[in-house]
């Protein structure tokens, strides 16, 4: 684990350089200067999402996420968790409301500027969305190649990541030949390899055994300790209890409940029920 954290720290420097712009790295709890309000990396304000002419999938969703926070998103099936995550990883624009990521308004952001923000968000999809004709190695390497890293660096990072998720022997295997759990591990490795500022995961432990789930949770925790903000949608109540400082977000019928007030902007410091 420590070796992996070390590797991530090294990756952090390289991937930032490859994003084509430098920003102050948060060290000693200082705050990155994105022109945003200190400490807030995500802000939703009265966000509504409607597909076509149907009813609203998300209604009046308002919350803010702290930089470096660990959040679990829960709720029954069909509550709108995946839709909320889509808004977070910039796959969808809201029908109304305001979304600010890294201090920038994502609703009015020009299309051509979206990639630079997407590179800072790692995503683990519920259905993995691995590219079927690429090997595990190439699937995991994709974010680094998109960022323009050298093949030497890509090989070093991906090999290390494959070893950590226990797929070193399956580097050249295509997704179709991998089990559900192996595919999930490849998807997670792809999401974290570029050391994103925000990691969004939709049921990331749904297809893995308890042992691997624990390892993945350690990975997420390690990333969080390095400053990555995590938003994990899950039904797994055990996960919720494994991370002590995590904040729970609950969606029901497209509305977000915030009983502790921690998701407010600015958040309540005491976490006392409103």
């Amino acid at each position, binding site marked *: 684990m420590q070796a992996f954290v070390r590797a991530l720290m090294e990756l952090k420097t390289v991937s930032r350089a490859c994003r084509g712009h430098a920003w102050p790295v948060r060290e000693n709890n200082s705050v990155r200067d994105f022109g945003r309000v200190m400490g807030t990396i995500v802000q939703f304000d009265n966000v509504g999402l409607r597909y076509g002419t149907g009813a609203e999938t998300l209604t009046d969703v308002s919350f803010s996420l702290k930089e470096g926070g660990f959040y679990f998103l829960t709720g029954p099936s069909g509550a709108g968790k995946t839709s909320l995550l889509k808004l977070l*990883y*910039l*796959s*969808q*624009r809201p029908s109304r409301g305001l979304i600010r990521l890294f201090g920038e308004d994502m609703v009015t952001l020009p*299309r*051509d500027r*979206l*990639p*630079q923000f*997407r*590179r*800072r968000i790692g*995503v683990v999809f519920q259905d993995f*969305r691995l*590219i079927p*004709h*690429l090997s595990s190695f*190439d699937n995991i*390497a*994709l*974010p680094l*190649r*998109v*960022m323009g890293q050298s*093949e030497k660096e890509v090989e070093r990072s991906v090999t290390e990541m494959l070893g950590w998720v226990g797929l070193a022997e399956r580097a050249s295997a295509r997704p179709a030949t991998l089990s559900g759990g192996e595919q999930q591990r490849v998807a997670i490795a*792809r999401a974290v390899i570029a050391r994103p500022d925000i990691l969004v995961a939709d049921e990331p432990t749904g297809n893995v055994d308890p042992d691997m789930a624990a390892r993945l949770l350690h990975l997420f925790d390690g990333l969080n300790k390095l400053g990555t903000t995590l938003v994990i949608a899950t039904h797994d109540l055990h996960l919720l209890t494994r991370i002590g400082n995590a904040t729970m977000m609950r969606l029901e019928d497209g509305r977000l409940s915030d009983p502790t007030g921690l998701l407010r902007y600015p958040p309540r410091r005491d976490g006392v029920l409103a």
Partner: protein
Amino acid sequence: MISWLKPSVAERRLLPEGRSAGPMPWVIGIMMLLTTLAAAMGLAVGNASASLSNDIAGKLTIQVPEANQSTKNGQIRAILSEIRQVNAVVGVERVSDAQLAQLLDPWLGNVGADEDLPMPALIDVTLSRADATTILEITNLVTGIAPKARVDRHATWLSPLASLMTALKWLAFGLVLLMASATAATVILAVRAALNTHGETIAIMHLLGSSDNQIARLFQRRIALDAMLGCVAGFGVALAVMAVVGTRIGALGSDLLGGASLGLFGWLSILLLPVAGTALAAMIARLTVLRTLGKTL
């Protein structure tokens, strides 16, 4: 250019279809063959038309239809003498009786040489400028000496042929444009099909932070390679066809077709066609990808 066309192994794996797997290189090859032939025809006919126009623009023939031989000879001598004084005249030559008989031979047989058959005398005149004033001056001069004489401009006889050749030239260039449009349409269809095939890959790349330009570059490179393959093959076949047709035309020994050469400009234009075809395909591919991706988030 070469490094741009040489994708990395990783990039090749991203869009896995083989380069010549689809029909596009074949279609582009056929388009290039037809385009090259049409362009060559257009340029050659254009050159022949220009050559013909130059040849006939300053040429006149004076016909002296006098039955009385001595009167005719007197009129011809006077015309030859007077007409040489005109400024614009650079050459005057009487068509000899032997040449005249040779010209009439296909229609009249050897009776054309019969002295009893009254034949008009012909005088070929070459002018440095064939404007209306000069033509009128010569006509007045000739009819003043021989009232029955007629002045014929070659341009009047051959202008329908020159017009036809000019029309053929523009038709050929129109065909080149049509072929280029058809090639562009083929590329658009191929790119759209490829975008559909690789839709999921593109969506994932987008979500991982790929820019439209990065994705467009992959398609552009692939289409350019397909197009280059097709263009080179089609152009090679077209050159072979042109060589055969050129040899056949040369064997005819025709003055009119002899002017149908390509010239330096023509050859340079023809040699640019495969390059232009490849560049057009790459550009259309890029624009199509960017336009299609522009409709997504």
